């Protein structure tokens, strides 16, 4: 079984990303949405742990939320962008979805 984890909180202001990274199993996927997209950027104090996750997980970010926040540049290498249609696809391609609220 493979799981899609969504994270909608800024990693700087909430434990959600940290705990998600501890729980998410190899082969699962993580999608950053809403304020969660701040985690997708190079040069932050969370960049290393996101890069670590990329070694055995897929990491995605919702492009519309990146655009809204002016966070388009400096995306961590290996993170893929999706739009709402891609978000829907991710939920169907995985067996279940856990929202880290």
């Amino acid at each position, binding site marked *: *079984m493979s*799981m899609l984890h969504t994270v909608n909180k800024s990693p700087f202001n909430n434990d959600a990303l940290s*705990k998600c990274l*501890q*729980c*998410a*199993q190899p082969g699962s996927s993580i999608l950053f949405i809403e304020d969660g997209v701040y985690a997708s950027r190079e040069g932050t104090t969370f960049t290393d742990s996101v890069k670590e996750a990329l070694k055995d997980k897929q990491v995605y970010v919702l492009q519309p939320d990146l655009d809204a926040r002016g966070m388009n540049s400096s995306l961590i290498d290996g993170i893929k962008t999706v739009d709402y249609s891609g978000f829907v696809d991710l939920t169907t391609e995985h067996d*279940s979805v*856990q*929202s880290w609220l």
Partner: protein
Amino acid sequence: MSDAEQITKKFMYINRKAPYGTIYAWESLEVVLIAAAFDQDISLAFIDDGVYQLTKGQKTEAIGLKNFSATYRALGDYDIQKIYVEKESLETRGLTLDDLQHLVYEDEDDDYAEKDSIKLVSADELGKIMEEQNVVLSF
């Protein structure tokens, strides 16, 4: 229990928020109590500040909110037997299982012996259990 017509899914209810400061803990519990009537395979997980929901000795008179901590002790009567508490969340907060309420259920497969509902798990173990779920509800 085993009605051939009926779908049985594995439901996990994830609690990551402290009680009283926000309503999520209480309204999550309301869902669980209703869900118990549906004969699904239910488990609860308490992670991060969610572990605070289970502390002993909650007294809410002075803040004027309803005290719902006793409801967790009733979960066994609703046949909810799997309550996972994440180990590191307790440790970070200086808590041990002794600070939490003792939650039990009667095991009908073992002559109704009283057994502990709470299982202490690591984040990695919890992640594995999460992956086995069909439906994960987070509050």
